[in-house]
């Protein structure tokens, strides 16, 4: 009798364990669930949410992925790390999503990736960071592939690419468009600019070093803090430095104040190139009361058909989802389509490692070029695959001035534009 009880007990435990394992495997039938997380009071998260919803609606209308509908589950992190961790757990453990998209600053992505790594063995899933910039996500994959292989980063550039791709392209803009060899560099005091200020050992010299190698003289360099509101002293010094262009390695400073003060300073005749952020968004003209006139900026929000997907994406997002296509929306939308193709190539969602292998190889036509991820490090393929055009504000409109194949206007000096 005792033996029978023991056997029954063992079978019961075995069944429980088996049920548990099965429960944790990705679902292979029913809707494909994707979790979306963002700070719903931040414009970039809201825009990304609109883009993710649009991608899901389009896919479902076209029959879903391999006949399965896609369900998007949205969670608001409120920009708080504890809430981010809690929402990530809920999505993975309760909602049993196949993938989690985090569309906000990189700190949230890192928090999500860490909790994701803990959950991965029990709840295999994928993770995409579509807004966070810098190196924190892909460095984890590089340093511990086994642990973090489920994580992918889709956000334009990483430090190496900033130094090896973006910086040489900038020198092209300086020499050929602005026609100057003297540059003043302004960095914002943030983690992502550190490799640019100091260089990457054994990989690349600093940004100033790269410019020097390309025959550009760096006549002035400074770093500004994020909470800085007064920039006049910097412009006064730049005006005296013989700079022909101001290269602003910024994305998060108060760009509205920065631009307004530049346009009313002694450096107003020196053109400004801003790497990204508010200046590249359509409301910048209104916010600065037109003082952004003449500013060059890396922007993905310009209506130029980079691929057949670019213009419909921008128009439909505004028309049907009532959000502007600001940064993060393109990358989120393109991530969804890259992911779809990977699922199709993997033949389903049952094996997450198979999906990872497919994501490492996949290439798909995207809003800003071609979406795909580096096979070893999981950051998205950089320029020329994925593109951020350089635009110039010219009398209320953003005109593409670089690269040549998408150019729809010539560079005009700020002084001439103000006439």
């Amino acid at each position, binding site marked *: 009798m005792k033996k029978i009880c023991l056997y029954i007990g063992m079978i019961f435990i075995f069944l429980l364990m088996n049920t548990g394992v099965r429960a944790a495997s990705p679902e292979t039938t029913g809707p494909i669930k994707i979790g979306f997380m963002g700070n719903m009071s931040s414009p970039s998260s809201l825009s990304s949410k609109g883009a993710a919803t649009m991608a899901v609606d389009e896919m479902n209308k076209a029959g879903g992925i391999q006949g399965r509908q896609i369900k998007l589950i949205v969670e608001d992190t409120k920009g708080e790390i504890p809430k981010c961790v809690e929402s990530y757990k809920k999505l993975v453990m309760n909602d049993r999503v196949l993938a989690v998209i985090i569309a906000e600053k990189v700190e949230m992505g890192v928090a999500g990736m860490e909790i994701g790594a803990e959950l991965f063995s029990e709840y295999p899933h994928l993770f995409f960071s579509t807004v966070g910039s810098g190196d924190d996500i892909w460095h984890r994959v590089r340093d511990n592939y086994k642990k973090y292989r489920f994580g992918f980063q889709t956000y334009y550039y990483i430090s190496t690419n900033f130094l090896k791709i973006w910086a040489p392209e900038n020198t092209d803009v300086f020499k050929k468009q602005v026609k100057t060899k003297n540059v003043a560099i302004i960095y914002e005091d943030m983690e992502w600019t550190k490799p640019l200020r100091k260089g990457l050992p054994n990989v690349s010299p600093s940004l100033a070093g790269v410019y020097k190698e390309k025959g550009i003289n760096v006549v002035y360099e400074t*770093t500004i803090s994020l909470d800085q509101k007064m920039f006049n*002293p910097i412009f006064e010094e730049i005006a005296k430095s013989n700079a022909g262009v101001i290269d602003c390695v910024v994305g998060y400073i108060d760009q509205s104040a920065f631009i*307004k003060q530049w346009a009313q300073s002694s450096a107003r005749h020196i053109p400004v190139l801003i790497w990204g952020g508010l200046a590249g968004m359509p409301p910048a003209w209104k916010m600065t009361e037109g003082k952004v006139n003449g500013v060059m900026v890396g922007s993905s929000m310009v209506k130029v058909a980079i691929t057949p997907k670019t213009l419909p994406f921008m128009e439909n997002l505004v028309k049907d989802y009532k959000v502007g296509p600001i940064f993060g929306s393109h990358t989120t939308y393109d991530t969804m389509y890259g992911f779809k193709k990977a699922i199709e190539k993997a033949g389903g969602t049952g094996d997450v490692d198979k999906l990872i292998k497919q994501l490492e190889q996949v290439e798909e036509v995207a809003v800003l070029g071609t979406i795909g991820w580096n096979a070893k490090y999981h950051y998205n393929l950089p320029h020329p695959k994925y593109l951020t055009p350089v635009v110039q504000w010219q009398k209320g409109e953003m005109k593409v001035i670089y690269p040549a194949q998408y150019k729809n206007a010539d560079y005009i000096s700020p002084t001439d534009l103000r006439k």
Partner: protein
Amino acid sequence: MSDILLQIVIYTVIWGSIYLLISLGFSLVCGVLRIFHLGYGVTFILAAYVTWAFMENAGLGLMPSLLLMLLVQCAFALIVFYKGVFQRYLEEEEVLLTLSILIFLAVAHLANYLYPVTDGVSIPSTIIDGMLNIGGVTIAYQMIAAAIVGIVVTAIYVVWFMKTRIGLIIRAISQNLPAALLMGVNVNRMYYLAMILSVIPPTICMIVIAPFWGVDPFMGSSLLMTAMLISILGGLGNLKGSIVASYLIGFIHATVSFVLVSRFMGLAALIVTLVVMIYRRGGIFAGETLW
């Protein structure tokens, strides 16, 4: 060297006057009501976003929008802050401070919800366009205008407090409340007046600095910090102290920016304030009196 000196002098005056405008209302609430008004940042948000709402949603011109915004400011200060919080929780300081900051945050988030950055909020309040060159230093006319407005508003306030009967009563309240009560002062009415007076300088400030300052829903925090720093350095609630502290901070910011590096100007001001507080606990003009 003379170039740098000139730059320091010019920017000390300009920034100092703007900081004065930012902190005057905060100092007044500290001095008269003896409240550390953590909700003060709301005034800046309301100034920008209510004006914008009247212009964009009601289609009104700048001047009518500004006037209506001023009415909203006064109503908000009196009904929400004074009647709703200060009067009720004057004796429970922790509740009062918590509620004030919560109201501030709620308004900032509401502004962000109604008018996110993508709406491109701006106030077209440029008084004079263009720039002036003084000995090789270029300054926007609007910045000069903002500095002049700062000086004029402060001068009006000081003269009013020094020369009028009501000003005298308010000073009396700030110096000795029980004595003022014994003398038959209607303290409640004076508090109402002080609340209204406290919203005028930051409102004007927001309007005059908007052409060279960033407008966003969370700008109130940095402006509140500036106001607090100046009031603490000058001596809480002392207008004389606020004037001196504003120009002192302006001087520190200008010197650090032109001699060292601009990103340390905030840090330098904090260190100086800290040092002053160590040696002079109540600030430069210690004591909770208005003048």
